[in-house]
């Protein structure tokens, strides 16, 4: 536990250091820029509520990836599942009108069904034809991208719009806000708690964890690994779909082209840098959202282009991942030396 904290913190710090040096070399004041970045994201409760709202898709797609990777299936399909989920929710919001207390759960349910449907395609290809999901999900991502592009350009196109997009969804399907506090955050936290509970407190979660770490052991222990695979694919697809639905319902309130471009791969990055730990996924999701939200403030105050943050995130991921591996090697070497010493002493 302490070990991984050190790896993560030192990784983040070195990434900040690298980008700081780059900024300084280009004539930007690095310290002021970082100060502006954090001031504009966690400096006020107002700003932080925006951070939380922006973290919704990161956390949910991150959870999807973390649960999948640590339970076995290499579901890389969050980008596609996100889009299909968003599209399903949008379609519901265009053609059905219910009072808000029914409408919102209805649309969220549609989003989850959409995401799960998309991951089901990959799951069924694996189970029936033994086609590796890490390739099929990647291909399905691109297909989902093009499919939703088509859907919003033709059948659900808002007549007269200059950009591929659908009309706005019904008002009762908008996630309500109280001031800056968007209720989508509650849905995100609820989803996190439910997933966490299933994962760490139920027999099903126990089986998923064991299968992810050692599938043969789990299978010999009587775990129905085939059935669990399908369930995990559906659950993680539903999570990514939920992210898509929530983005539609909290943000533009319609499906516009490029809606998923900034989130879905980030989710996979979040889960990887968090080493598939669920709580770390939540924290990293919020942290990455902090960086993104703050980047605009940074640009405003010290003129550092906000894209710097994309570079910063990529460096954090790479450095933390590399640090984790290197630390493992260092520990092994240290243990060998200890053992040698113990031998020498008797």
């Amino acid at each position: 536990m302490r070990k991984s904290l050190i790896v993560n913190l030192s990784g983040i710090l070195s990434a900040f250091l690298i980008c700081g040096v780059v900024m300084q070399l280009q004539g930007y004041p690095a310290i002021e820029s970082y100060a502006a970045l954090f001031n504009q994201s966690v400096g006020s409760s107002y700003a932080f509520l925006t951070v939380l709202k922006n973290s919704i898709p990161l956390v949910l797609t991150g959870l999807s990836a973390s649960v999948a990777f640590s339970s076995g299936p290499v579901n890389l399909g969050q980008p596609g599942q996100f889009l299909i989920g968003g599209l399903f929710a949008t379609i519901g919001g265009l053609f059905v009108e219910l009072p808000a207390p029914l409408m919102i759960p209805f649309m969220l349910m549609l989003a989850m069904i959409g995401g799960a449907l998309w991951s089901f395609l990959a799951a069924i290809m694996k189970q029936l034809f033994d086609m590796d999901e890490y390739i099929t999900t990647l291909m399905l991502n691109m297909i989902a991208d093009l499919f939703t592009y088509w859907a919003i350009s033709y059948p659900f196109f808002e007549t007269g719009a200059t950009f591929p997009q659908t009309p706005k969804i019904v008002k009762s399907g908008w996630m309500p806000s109280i001031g800056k506090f968007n209720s989508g955050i509650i849905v995100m936290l609820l989803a996190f708690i439910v997933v966490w509970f299933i994962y760490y407190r139920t027999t099903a979660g126990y089986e998923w964890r064991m299968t992810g770490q050692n599938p043969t052991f789990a299978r010999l222990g009587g775990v129905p690994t085939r059935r669990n695979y399908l369930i995990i694919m559906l659950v993680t697809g539903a999570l990514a779909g939920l992210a898509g639905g929530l983005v539609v319902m909290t943000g533009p309130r319609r499906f516009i082209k490029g809606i998923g471009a900034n989130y879905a791969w980030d989710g996979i990055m979040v889960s990887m840098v968090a080493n598939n730990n669920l709580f770390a996924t939540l924290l990293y999701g919020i942290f990455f959202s902090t960086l993104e939200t703050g980047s605009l403030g940074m640009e405003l105050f010290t003129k550092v282009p906000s894209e710097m943050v994309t570079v910063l995130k990529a460096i954090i991921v790479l450095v933390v991942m590399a640090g984790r591996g290197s630390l493992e090697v260092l520990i092994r070497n240290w243990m060998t030396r200890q053992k040698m010493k113990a031998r020498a002493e008797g």
Partner: protein
Amino acid sequence: MDSLIEIEHLIKIFPPNVVALDDVSVDFRKGEIHAIVGENGAGKSTLMKVLYGMHSADSGELRYHGKTVRFAAPGDAIQAGIGMVHQEILLVNEYTVWENVVLGQEPAGFFGRIDHGAARRIVTEKIHEFGFNLDADARVSELSVAARQKVEILKLLYRDVSFLILDEPTAVLTPQEIPQLFDELRRLRDNGHTIAFISHHLDEVLELSDRITVLRKGRKIATIPTAETTKSALAELMVGREVVFKPIKDNVPAGDIVFDLNGVNLKASNGKDLLRDVSIQVRASEIVGIAGVEGNGQLELVSVLTGLQRPDSGSLKIHGQELMDSSILDRRRRMSFVSQDRSRMGGCLTASIMENMLMTHHRLRSTFTAGGGILIDDQKAAAFAEDACRRFDVTYATIQAPFRSLSGGNQQKVILGRELTLDTPFVLLDQPTRGLDVGSIEYVHHQIMELSRAHRAILIFSADLEELFRITDRILVLHRGKIVADLETERTNIGEVGSWMLEGAKSDA
């Protein structure tokens, strides 16, 4: 005779706590066949891998032609004239024989273009020179295992290697193929090659080698000229105590048939028979051992019993209940299973001790589950795991510590604890003492006796004959996928079982 290679005070540690080689010194003389013998886990392969540059030594010295050397990678060793044929054959299956042989040292012309003609010619010449029966253009994936091994040897000869390491080369061969290999090796020795030969088959070693080095638990015990030793002397050196069979089995009268396996057949995809009409019955309180040279169908039989693999035909009944078409979980309601592979099958290294203890129980018993088996009560689960650890004498720091932090013996006790508390009528043990220290072995054997007293039916696979003679009522011998002998332990001896194992027939002697 000159020493070609001298190894001095070699130490190799695998963290966290395995000392694979403990101050080992050996010398290899030019033009000898030098056998390295020892039980599983004695450090034979590790020693050779250090010599070959695959592992780095943590301490010690290596002298080659009198000069201190250090091989950082196999490439360096090959360059120096040392080559190794691995236990698991390392060839590119998609390539032809000649492509595999020249890989890494290809005769090439302009722009790195491989000179196919020259390469094939050289390889063909080598094949004739050493009298190997191989086709240079055959694809490796279509060759038999014995032929692949020849390709590996050829690959080394092509590199003008003067020192050859063979890691258990006979393990993958059929009995008919072994003499041919030995002839080839002798021819190589007579040509001036030096050969290190790893084996745990004493007969082979005595037949082939000039000198023998015995390793036991990472230490060198002795290096002796073959002419000056005997099989029993070697066995004693290997095992470390005089080989006496003191059966600890007490006479619990056997009850009704609990386990009934009938007519199991299994073919490989290439049509080879893996299991032939295997039938086994085990009664309550009875301990039945399966002996056999490794690779004679043990792996397949265990897979069929546990449900990992479906046989082509056959039935499996426990207490009269047909289980061959049942799920693994249904089998596990009636079958405890201790596998030989603690890290891959028996346990999960990265999970906690507690999580390892819960497996299977989480589906069958409800002492630590709630809500109709949906939830796991962490506190009750910890209590359950701690209780099992106490009953099975596991030494551990906390129940949440990772399984891999335990020693091999303690890992095995956790697995035994989990499996034996399942209270199943039938217990399947696959090499339950492999790689354990003497104390742990003793412990496991006494647990097995307890099982017998509790009227359970026990089937045990073991490569260790001594173990079988110590605890079983009956010994069945598996030879090429067939049960060739069914012997009462009290009325047979190690020689008889050994000849059944090696030849599939009773020896005349």
